[in-house]
């Protein structure tokens, strides 16, 4: 029996987690929220150690120290733009831990007095299965985002059949475990889960991966909830459920912000409609220019708006961009950055990127705020963005981005595009704006082009 003070402490920890999630959903309180969550976790850990009589306390504390050190080092080493894959890894190991816990409990259940109840067994099987899905799936997302494997969706002929077989095997193992639990069957179930996790993530295109990470995060939350039931620990149940529910909603919100459904994110590639789209390049003429000419346009403009996008992150050109903007500001030009909510490949990508380059916050303008200003802009500099300024979102009902709000760069007097080729962006569709008479292209890697532009503008 857990002592009353420990139960109260667990409840307090659960309240911390709730307050943490609430805090994390508003910019003003986000950091405090995260710290409150950490405080809750600390309370929980101290409570479990102080309220239980552990056999191998030293070994356990050593293991905690090792894990904490590894986690901290990983968290400090990672670069800002690699955060999503780091989160994926952390999430995966959490799922793995839950699966191991359930596996060990499974081996104990039949011995316990009154143990081995059907609900307990189902909870154990669920945790083992979904925990392994989460672990394996997260590893694949990590490999994809780190570009250790192709970021393109991977499908193959037998995919649906294999997937169906995997699901059947999972159900089969589950039923057998409930009927006659054994640790061996549990390991089998874990293996099936790992296979399903890999299959789940393979067909997802690189840019949709953040959505899948969020989904796997919700999965892990649910496994933690189930293992809470298994261990008869309210805190695990409540915390796991919180994350499971919040994570599910968050997955929907993220998919929504990118204008796609979770289902098409996961399985779109199977229906042939590759989520990366086609990469056909038409041969219509475009106007391209040199850094020197573009520099003159910029230098003599009164109002410039920068539209950063994924390419800026790829080229790591944010520092050079800031220097360019500083020079323009010194010349008295009014310059702002127009931040589209889904520019880049993760929510807040541009904010994080530009914050890293220490762009002052006042220069970052959210879409709703800056959009009316494009009409008065002399030059719009589109740095590695594409979909977020594509008028097809308003004019072409069939387009994958149709209905997404866009930045109306097309209303400006001049648009300068920095990109390497005529290849389309994430959505894989052509951008009419590239062919407009007011548009000029500046081909090349954003970082190179930007340095040249900087030199030229300084020289004007």
């Amino acid at each position, binding site marked *: 029996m857990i002592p009353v003070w420990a139960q109260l402490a667990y409840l307090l*920890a659960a309240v911390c987690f709730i307050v943490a*999630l609430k805090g*994390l*959903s*508003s*910019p003003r309180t*986000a*950091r405090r929220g995260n710290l409150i*969550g*950490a405080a809750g976790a600390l309370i929980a*850990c101290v409570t479990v150690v102080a309220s*239980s*009589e552990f056999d*191998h*306390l030293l*070994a*356990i504390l050593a*293991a905690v120290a*090792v*894990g*904490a050190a*590894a*986690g*901290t080092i*990983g968290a*400090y080493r990672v670069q*800002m733009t690699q955060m999503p894959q780091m*989160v994926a890894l*952390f999430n995966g190991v*959490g799922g793995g*831990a839950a699966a*191991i*816990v359930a596996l*060990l*409990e499974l*081996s104990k259940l039949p011995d316990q007095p009154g143990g081995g109840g059907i609900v307990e067994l189902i909870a154990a099987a669920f945790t083992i299965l979904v925990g392994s899905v989460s672990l394996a799936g997260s590893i694949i997302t990590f490999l994809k985002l780190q570009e250790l494997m192709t970021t393109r969706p991977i499908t193959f002929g037998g995919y649906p059949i294999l997937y169906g077989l995997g699901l059947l095997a999972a159900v089969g193992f589950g039923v057998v475990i409930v009927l006659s639990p054994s640790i061996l069957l549990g390991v089998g179930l874990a293996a099936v889960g790992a296979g399903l996790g890999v299959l789940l993530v393979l067909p997802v295109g690189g840019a949709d991966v953040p959505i899948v990470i*969020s989904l796997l*995060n919700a999965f892990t*939350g649910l496994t933690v*909830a189930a293992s*809470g039931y298994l261990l008869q620990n309210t*805190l*695990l*149940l*409540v*915390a*796991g*459920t*919180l994350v499971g*529910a*919040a994570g599910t909603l*968050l997955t929907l*919100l993220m998919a929504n*912000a990118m204008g796609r459904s979770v289902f098409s994110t996961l399985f779109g590639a199977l229906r042939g409609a590759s989520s990366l789209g086609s990469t056909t390049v038409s041969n219509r003429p475009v106007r391209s220019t040199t850094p020197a000419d573009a520099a003159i346009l910029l230098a003599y403009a009164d109002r410039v708006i920068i539209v950063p996008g994924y390419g800026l992150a790829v080229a790591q050109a944010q520092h050079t961009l800031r220097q360019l903007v500083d020079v323009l500001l010194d010349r008295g030009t009014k310059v702002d950055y127009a931040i589209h*909510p889904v520019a880049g490949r993760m929510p*807040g990508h541009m*904010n*994080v990127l530009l*914050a890293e380059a220490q762009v002052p*916050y006042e220069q970052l303008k959210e879409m709703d705020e800056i959009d009316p200003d494009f009409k008065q802009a002399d030059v719009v500099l589109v740095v590695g963005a594409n979909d977020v300024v594509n008028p097809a979102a308003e004019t072409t009902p069939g387009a994958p981005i149709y209905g997404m709000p866009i930045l109306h760069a097309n209303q400006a007097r001049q648009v300068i595009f920095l990109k390497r080729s005529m290849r389309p962006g994430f959505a894989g569709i052509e951008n009419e704006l590239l062919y407009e008479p007011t548009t000029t292209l500046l081909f090349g890697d954003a970082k190179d082009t930007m340095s040249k532009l900087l030199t030229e503008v300084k020289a004007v």
Partner: protein
Amino acid sequence: MSEPLVWLTFFVLAAFVGVEVISKVSSILHTPLMSGANAIHGVILVGAMLVAGTADSTGELIMALVAVVLASINMVGGFVVTDRMLIMFSHRRRAVEGAKRPELER
């Protein structure tokens, strides 16, 4: 009230709390929120410690300790990485506050 129903009630209430509490999140915070929620489920560490503390055989103990290591990576790493992300955001916020009373800057 029967045990499983108590747990079901906890589950239902916690699910409502989880959904409602983040339903107003602005899209800019999606990534930190995901990361913070991820750190919270690192509380499985409590479960891993409980299992390790009652392990009967060396084999079990080793597996349980692996779970402890994994869970603490999840929990500690999760909170630290979230904090790092959010420092970026709050830098920016301080910049705004500064901008709102520029007299303090000069």
